[in-house]
């Protein structure tokens, strides 16, 4: 394995918005906002635009760490050929620069005319990215936020604020609340583990590495939506060649501790309100939280009735979540969290809370991925042959197919040939890799000698 010293998070940082992982809706909004600037809408008073967002001078990108906020801001600038001033709000000097911008009116056209400030050429856009805008330094916070608001109002350049905690920012300045806010809010969510897996797989390929697919998906899953974290984990895995458990421990331990702690606090809280807060503070996607509670619930319950009650709530939480995801009814999210909280709250024997645990289901799924993929490819081939869906082939036909396959050698050879089965599929069916290898070879070469009528082949492969 050859590994260079460049940080992969930089090397593989998306250069265009379309390369950004997940968050399609956020990206769409950003493009719309940029379109407003290209048309000059935010600088014209009372200008019409087909979308409110196009009138805003600034954007607030809000979301958890590592999901692509800064990356998207940079990609936007590079796509449009805008140059970038990156400031970090937690850095005292940045605050000064912001203030200076306001005081001197550095971002207005008039300032440029005296010749002393040539940062901006005519018509050129410079994107000001203010990172960690919810984390302003010093005690004069209030003034700091006010300076930003002023900078947006008076400035003539596009500005993007990046925050983890939108409410912290809005608490400091009510100017960012409501429709008169000078900045539109764009929320970033954690991308799916599958999306992250795709990114990691591409890196593995581009780096010419040989890393097991299961390990890649394990890293993707354990990253919990943190793309940056996942890429870092992958790189340290490639460097060290450690087992994935070591890597995952290093990368994900903190997050997992947070989740366990959140569940523990929820179980110990005296009110549904506190329990809900504890779960929300765990900072985990509710769908994943469900898997964690599912893991620990049977261990916590000291009686059948407790277990029954716990699962009654968890089952309702699941239903709310599915409505959130399927129908986009995000208002139901609160009920889902409350039902989850309720499932933990009524546990009487708190001492049973285990110090360490991880959802076994997720590990089992990870380990069985290879087999499931084989079943899937087998089902697709059978479905085509039997004019049905792969789902039905898998559940209705495969059990019978497998019996026939094992009982009748001629049937086995014939099916290997007709369905073009591969070694791993045959191995799955007969449970013997050496025999599978032999059978596939024989089936493909020895077919003619087995005297099979031509006619029957013709009818079988003719469906689109």
């Amino acid at each position, binding site marked *: 394995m050859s590994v260079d010293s460049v940080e992969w998070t930089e090397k593989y940082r998306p250069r265009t918005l379309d390369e950004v992982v997940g968050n399609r809706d956020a990206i769409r909004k950003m493009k719309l906002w940029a379109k407003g600037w290209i048309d000059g809408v935010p600088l014209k008073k009372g200008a019409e635009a087909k979308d409110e967002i196009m009138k805003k001078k600034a954007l607030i990108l809000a979301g958890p760490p590592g999901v692509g906020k800064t990356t998207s801001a940079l990609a936007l600038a590079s796509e449009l050929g805008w140059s970038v001033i990156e400031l970090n709000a937690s850095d005292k000097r940045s605050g000064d620069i912001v203030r200076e911008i306001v005081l001197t009116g550095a971002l207005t056209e008039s300032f440029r005319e005296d010749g002393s400030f040539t940062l901006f050429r005519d018509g050129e856009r410079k994107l000001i990215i203010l990172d960690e805008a919810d984390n302003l330094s010093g005690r004069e916070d209030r003034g700091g936020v006010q300076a930003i608001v002023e900078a947006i109002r008076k400035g003539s350049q596009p500005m993007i604020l990046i925050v983890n905690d939108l409410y912290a920012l809005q608490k400091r300045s009510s100017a960012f609340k409501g429709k008169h806010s000078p900045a539109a809010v764009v929320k970033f969510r954690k991308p799916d583990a599958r999306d992250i897996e795709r990114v990691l797989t591409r890196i593995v390929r581009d780096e010419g590495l040989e890393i097991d697919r299961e390990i890649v998906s394990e890293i993707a899953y354990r990253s919990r939506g943190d793309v940056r974290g996942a890429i870092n984990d992958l790189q340290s895995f490639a460097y060290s060649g450690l087992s994935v458990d070591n890597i995952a421990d290093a990368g994900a331990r903190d997050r997992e501790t947070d989740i366990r702690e959140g569940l523990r606090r929820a179980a110990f809280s005296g009110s549904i309100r506190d329990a809900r807060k504890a779960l929300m503070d765990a900072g985990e996607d509710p*769908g994943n939280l*469900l898997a964690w509670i*599912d893991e620990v619930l*049977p261990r916590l319950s000291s009686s*059948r*009735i407790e*277990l*029954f009650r*716990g*699962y*009654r709530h*968890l*089952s309702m939480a*699941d*239903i709310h*979540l*599915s*409505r959130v*995801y*399927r129908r986009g009814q995000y208002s139901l999210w609160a009920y889902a969290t409350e039902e989850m909280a309720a499932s933990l709250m009524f546990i009487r024997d708190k001492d049973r809370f285990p110090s360490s645990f991880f959802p*076994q*289901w997720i590990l*089992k*799924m990870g380990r*069985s991925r290879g*087999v*499931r993929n084989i*079943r899937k490819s087998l089902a*697709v081939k059978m*479905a085509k*042959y*039997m*004019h*049905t*869906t*792969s*789902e*039905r082939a*898998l*559940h*209705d*036909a495969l*059990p*019978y*197919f497998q*019996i*026939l396959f094992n*009982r*009748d050698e*001629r*049937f086995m050879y*014939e099916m290997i040939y007709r369905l073009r089965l591969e070694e791993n599929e045959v191995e799955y069916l007969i449970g013997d890799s050496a025999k599978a290898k032999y059978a596939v070879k024989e089936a493909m070469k020895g077919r003619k000698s087995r005297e*099979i009528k031509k006619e*029957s082949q013709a009818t*079988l492969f*003719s*469906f*689109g």
Partner: protein
Amino acid sequence: MLEIWTEKYRPRVLDEVVGQKNVVPRLKSYVKSGNMPHLLFAGPAGIGKTTCAIALAREFFGENWQSNFYELNASDERGIDVVRVNIKEYARTAPFGGAPFKIIFLDEADALTSDAQAALRRTMEKYSRTCRFILSCNYSSKIIEPIQSRCAVFRFTRPGEGDIISYLRRIIEGEKLKISDEAVKQIAYVADGDVRKAVNILQVAASFSDGKEITLKTVFEATAMADPKDVREMIGKAMEGNFMDARRILDKLLIDQGLSGEDIIKAIHKVVIDEAGIKEDKKVIMLEKIGEADFRMVEGSNPRIQIEALLAAFGLI
């Protein structure tokens, strides 16, 4: 034995289709008139919807039927892109060899999202000159109204035991099998209206008999082997209050055997109904819980959680 019998003996003409007396004559009248509207085939799996669609195409188009018949499975190729790209691409070209139209057969159309169905509706309208759609679904209620109203709806019903037996007889003759009458009856009984299942059981039973007569015992053996295993044990563990063991079996079913939540609920349902060891008053409560879990699974996203909740409820019975 060189083929799967469900394919080898799939009826080639409409007259060979068993047990769909309300459907077949109407379809034949379309063939006679040389034209047909869009069709919606509704009914459970394994009773002849796909067979009728293919047979219809054969009778309309004769030898060249395959060039004017496009089969696709909505649940495998979900989503609006399938409608926008695949279906449209096929629909817009002229029928082959002077046929009056082409047939697009969309299996499990109820798996399409409502957006995709809306797109499908527009495609159906736009290309209705060159193209007829046959949509198949388990429940017609899951097909959006505007599509239903554009289709002639056919409700496929489960064939009776007599119909299934006469179909099995055809295969028995073709394969020159020896089989006892009670064995044939038992297969038809177990299949419960699912023709595909009946044929699969017959073929497995035949493979067990090694050329000798297929007996009742052979059929029992064949059905036991293909039944989802462990479901009975899982229910037993749950009722003992041994939730963790029950859950381990559940995981085995879901992961190792790759069963869907729906399949497992069906199997649980069957075991509870048939199980002599559970008192009737308890059965009633269990069935109520199973029904609720089944309904929630249709609504919910995570079959494992819903079945776990059911197993926890069994612990109180």
